[in-house]
């Protein structure tokens, strides 16, 4: 199988490069920051990893509350965590 080119994206303005097929949740974990803070300020990250728990929400290309475990990284994507 031919190797697919890597994907470049921004997470909170930090440029990172990941393999094709990487979820946004994984990319955020690579950066090592929480996906969001709860209303009481607690850090949140992926719990179920399959789109059920809503704990991994992040803003992706301007759309708030996206489940980052269900979205694959794309070239030029901009991700923001709270």
């Amino acid at each position, binding site marked *: 199988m031919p190797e697919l080119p890597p994907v470049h994206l921004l997470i909170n303005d930090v440029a990172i490069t990941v393999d094709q097929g990487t979820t946004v949740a994984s990319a955020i974990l690579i950066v090592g920051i929480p996906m969001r803070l709860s*209303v009481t300020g607690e850090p949140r990250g992926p719990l179920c990893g399959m789109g059920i728990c809503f704990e991994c929400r992040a803003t992706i290309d301007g*759309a*708030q*509350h996206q489940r980052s475990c269900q979205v694959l990284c794309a070239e030029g994507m901009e991700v923001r965590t709270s």
Partner: protein
Amino acid sequence: MSETWDVVIVGAGIVGAACAFQCVSRGMRTAVVEAKSIGGGATAAGMGHIVVMDDSPAQLALTHYSQSLWQHLATVLPASVEYEKCGTLWVAADDEEMQEVHRKSEVYAAAGVATEILDGPMLADAEPQLRRPLAGALLVPSDAVLYPPCAAGYLMDEALRLGAQLYRRKVLSVHSGEVRLDDGTQLNSTHIVIASGADACDLLPALPIKKRKGHLVITDRYPGFVRHQLVELGYLKSAHSSTADSVAFNVQPRKTGQLLIGSSRQYGAEDTAVSQQTVAAMTERAQWYLPKIGGLSAIRVWAGFRAATPDKLPLIGPWPEDDSLFLATGHEGLGITTSLGTASILLDHLEGKSPSIPISPYLPARFARSVVSA
């Protein structure tokens, strides 16, 4: 077991809780009966809009008076009640509705309620997510929003702290000064206040109240998406209609950043099951006014019952069929707003004092003749 009280209140929604708070504040020995959770019925199903409305002079008087009581109480409400004076924007889609903006502004001014008239560009500035062009809007800055179950909880907690007693039982009957509960307890009082919304008909089938079902949607947190409570002026056509099912654009920003999306009105429904057809009609209406609202995540949808009377005014005061019974129900979609005013004028009436606004338009006796002839 038989106990005697100065007053027994049936129902601890926001109206019952407000009555309980008033009663104990006036030194009455007060019992409240509620089998379900405090503020768990129509109180929890509604939006929590503290709004001045002018369908009739009597409605304007009660909503305006009640709003002033909320403004006074707001200084001591706990944060959990999420009271916020965000104002209402009555949105005019076209020139015909803009005429209504001017008419409404004059009526409010005559009643001493300050408003501002916004033209299309001013409205776009105030609410950038609204579709363009729109004709304008009437801003009522004194209107507010709050979280009704917590408001009812606060009023009930205050009543209990001041000595009220809460019975977590179901009421089987109310008659001639006696309230019978489902554990055999009998509460005796010469003043029994029925504040159980549309469920009051289970105890008093002759009440002129019909259930009017409504749906709401709540979204995830999107702070700043809208800033005011937004209501279409076409809402009035919808709310006034006494028969047809209808939906109207009505969106409320919560202090949490969540949005409540309404509204629907439907007679004849017997359960609170969610109708996908109604929700679709409601959200399509919302999307016409707020084109990007469809991109937000909704997290819950539910329905509840308003207690509607034939003349759109609540039933406050003695029930002519039974000297011991007093009503505080029939508030339809305005129970959160008018709960405080209802409690105040009812208790003034009970104590033989002159209420701050005349109680006569709300007296249940206005329906007594039709009840007798029915």
